[in-house]
């Protein structure tokens, strides 16, 4: 491939991949089963120049490759705002990546698609929340890939064999120990998001193991991983008794003592949740959920919480999701109910990185620690962080509503 026998696009990809492998300290490359590519999100003219170079050079992916979100919602064009030139460029970039043979999935939650990677499979995924989910929950093996190198891996079907691709690199070195978390809180989405936020702040690039959680759904693990990958650089975590490479604490640590043990108290988690609210007493302007993309199970919970009620006219309510999940909603006959209740469904992109939301007076409420972390900087918007139940109740009432029971024991 380096010699050019696979065409000039593959040659460029191979050149970048080999150089990156050297920089990452890898001694060899490993074949991958799939790739997930984030380079399809428009940052500027370089994004287009690079993709055009690959398309012109006859580039075609060698492995099953899914695409992360783009800069525009292709299915709901009426939602796209901002500079029309930038929108056109964003759409053009999405076309170019499709032309390289990638599947136009446009989701940051590729683990919600069929045929997801299996335990031990070598992959090259981009998008920090997808990376941490693939490593932690699926037990597939990927390092942190991103712009340029993600498509280089897809075009060559190879990744540098280093870090989280190897047995050794996946062992936990930091132990987070939870104790006496009230059952109601432990079953909530905010608990997992706040815990992820706390862990990200204290883990740097290490692999943490979390002990003391009885039960977790995939959506809760998604919330934890996305939070830890936003406030920190966590690309994999273990959860004892829950994630596939952590049958025991000792197994997660490779039978070695962790370098550091960090106790996590209820008060720590309450502080983490509080830190994610930047809005002070600002009034509620909108609600945004689905960062990472809302799953079918989350829509089911949303329907239950709405209970046939409508969102207040004063509040815009956005749910970002994959187009595949939107199809499922349609097939189940839920899509019309949800939109009739005042929920705007956003696909193919996300409200925290594309200009989708209408001008907002007041703060945005979300149950996503990732949205809460990036929202203020990306959009200049103040955030209220709360559970999905708090988001829905607030949206229906038209003003911030807090569940007084959720954090009750933390403030005693």
């Amino acid at each position, binding site marked *: 491939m380096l010699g050019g026998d696979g065409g000039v696009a593959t040659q460029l990809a191979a050149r970048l991949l080999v150089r990156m492998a050297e*920089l990452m300290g890898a001694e060899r490359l490993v074949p991958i089963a799939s790739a997930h590519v984030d380079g399809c999100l428009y*940052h*500027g003219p*370089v994004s287009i120049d690079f993709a055009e170079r690959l398309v012109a050079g006859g580039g075609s992916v060698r492995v099953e490759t899914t695409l992360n979100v783009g800069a525009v919602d292709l299915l709901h064009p009426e939602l796209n705002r901002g500079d029309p030139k930038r929108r056109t460029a964003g759409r053009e970039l999405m076309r170019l990546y499709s032309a390289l043979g990638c599947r136009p999935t446009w989701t940051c939650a590729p683990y919600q698609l069929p045929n997801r990677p299996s335990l031990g499979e070598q992959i090259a995924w981009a998008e920090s929340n997808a990376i941490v989910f693939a490593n932690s929950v699926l037990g597939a093996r990927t390092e942190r890939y991103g712009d340029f190198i993600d498509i280089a891996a897809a075009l060559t079907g190879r990744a540098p064999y280093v870090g989280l691709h190897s047995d050794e690199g996946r062992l936990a070195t930091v132990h987070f120990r939870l104790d006496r978390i009230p059952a109601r809180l432990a079953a909530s989405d905010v608990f997992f998001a706040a815990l992820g936020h706390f862990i990200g702040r204290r883990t740097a690039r290490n692999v943490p193991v979390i002990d003391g959680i009885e039960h977790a759904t995939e959506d809760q693990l998604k919330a934890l991983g996305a939070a830890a990958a936003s406030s920190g650089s966590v690309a994999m975590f273990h959860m004892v008794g829950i994630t596939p490479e952590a049958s025991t604490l000792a197994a997660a640590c490779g039978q070695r003592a962790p370098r550091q043990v960090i106790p996590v108290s209820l008060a720590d988690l309450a502080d983490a949740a509080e830190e994610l609210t930047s809005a002070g007493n600002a009034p509620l302007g909108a609600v945004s959920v689905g960062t990472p993309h809302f799953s079918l199970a989350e829509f089911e919970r949303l329907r239950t919480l709405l209970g046939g009620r409508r969102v207040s006219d004063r509040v815009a309510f956005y749910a970002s999701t994959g187009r595949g999940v939107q199809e499922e909603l349609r097939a189940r006959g839920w899509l019309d109910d949800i939109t009739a209740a005042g929920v705007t469904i956003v696909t193919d992109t996300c409200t925290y990185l594309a200009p989708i939301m209408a001008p907002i007076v007041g703060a945005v409420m979300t149950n996503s620690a990732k949205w809460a972390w990036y929202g203020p900087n990306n959009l200049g918007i103040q955030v209220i962080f709360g559970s999905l139940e708090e988001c829905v109740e607030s949206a229906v009432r038209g003003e911030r509503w807090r569940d007084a029971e959720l954090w009750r024991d933390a403030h005693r």
Partner: protein
Amino acid sequence: MTLTGEALTPGQARGMTLVLDEPISFWGGVDENTGRVTDTRHPQSGASVAGMILVLQCGRGSSSSSSVLAECLRNGVGPAAIVLAEPDPILALGALVAGELYGTEIPVVVVPSNAYAACSAARELTVEADLGSRRALVRIVN
């Protein structure tokens, strides 16, 4: 004084230093049209990386920083060279891609901690990085 280090990307540069007291994320932290540090929480907020020898411990955060560095270089407001204390594949990749697409090669080098301290105290540096030997030479001009 001449210091040696490791070359992450090839190239040669001479310029005044901009020393960052904290790691930076180019994505969300540097404006690709002006080269200015826009992260209001950063100690060097408002300074411009354009044409400077950027001296920083390491990068931080999103892998999209590769793209933003490449955009800066395309727009002619990128740094002339980057001197790091720790290897940073994300920044190196941004420089490599800009080199591939636009021929704007800038050396990204890593130096040991004592050399890093000397670079941080310098006002003007030259940087030469050779990919064949992986060797980088950093000379303190003043």
